[in-house]
């Protein structure tokens, strides 16, 4: 059928312009196809030939540039919301598991030289790192609440996605900086402590990898919102 190509071409063009979670993209395109098929059927029922009916349906749907801009905002928002929930769950969970792992293999953290407590600057870095996951998770939760309020006030999907992306990137920057800082600080004071317990060292490596992965997800929030 000649007219089938009009809708197919439109959806292929639209799909090719969109970047974001594949399942959300497929969901949006499936719904768009339903709408275009319905509109084409209505025009056919009104007496138009198939090709003309589908061309009219596509024209009614709007220029692909405008449609792609709106749909891209939705994709960016979907990715951002999912990323914020991931931060809320994964960061505190990773922190708790790391602490439990430490307690299981080493017990209480001994002082660095066996007598004197660690220097004040090290304790400051350690406390910042200990709290980073919880602070970022809290910020992500606040961003979700604020985002929902803004959505109810009519703020568009793309600005909401940029807001969520900014919170996610800033939060992961803070968490990653805290994680790397404590590793470097410990290496500076007592490098042997980093490999004192292989399971704890492995957990630290896994923690850094998790942080890097979350940072990539956070960065994609901004990338998808900027397409």
């Amino acid at each position, binding site marked *: 059928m000649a007219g089938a190509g009009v809708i197919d071409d439109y959806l292929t063009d639209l799909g090719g312009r969109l970047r974001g979670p594949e399942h959300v993209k497929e*969901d949006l395109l499936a*719904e768009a196809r*339903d709408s275009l098929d319905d*509109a084409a059927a209505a025009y056919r029922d009104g007496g138009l030939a198939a090709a003309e009916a589908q061309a009219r349906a596509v024209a009614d*749907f709007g220029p692909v540039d*405008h*449609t792609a801009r709106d749909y891209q905002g939705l994709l960016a928002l979907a990715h951002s919301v999912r990323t914020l929930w991931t931060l809320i769950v994964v960061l505190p969970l990773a922190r708790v598991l790391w602490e439990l792992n430490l307690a299981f293999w080493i017990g209480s953290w001994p002082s660095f030289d066996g007598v004197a407590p660690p220097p004040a600057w090290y304790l400051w870095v350690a406390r910042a790192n200990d709290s980073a996951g919880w602070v970022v998770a809290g910020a992500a939760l606040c961003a979700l609440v604020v985002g929902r309020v803004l*959505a*109810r006030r009519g703020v*568009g999907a793309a600005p909401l996605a940029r807001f969520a992306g900014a919170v996610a990137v800033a939060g992961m920057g803070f968490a990653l900086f805290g994680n790397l800082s404590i590793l470097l600080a410990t290496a500076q004071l007592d490098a042997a402590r980093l490999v004192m317990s292989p399971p704890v060292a492995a957990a630290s490596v896994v923690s850094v990898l998790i942080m890097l992965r979350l940072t990539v997800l956070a960065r994609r929030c901004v990338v998808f919102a900027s397409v």
Partner: protein
Amino acid sequence: MKSDALRGHLDALLLAVLDGGQLHGYAIIEALQRRSGGALDLPTGTVYPALRRLETAGLVSGEWSTVGGRRRRTYRLTKAGQRALAAERTAWHEFTTAIEGVLGGGPWPARA
């Protein structure tokens, strides 16, 4: 009617159409056109992002279901959506009453 003028009211219009019950996207578009006497002539592609945004805001809920033998994504008002619609209707009535008082009453009475 200009689509730019409609965009500012699109959320409220969609909530109002869904007040009658669960509908799929194209049925929502048909209802908008029918209830406006054909005056609401938005690109249909703008309606779906608006519905998804309302879903993100928790004002409507959407799900895929089988309607008339076809799988379709249908939408319904949530409790928060019903409250938002009531607030929109109140605000709209206050607005139209005020404007009608100025525009709809004919010439302002001349001073005695």
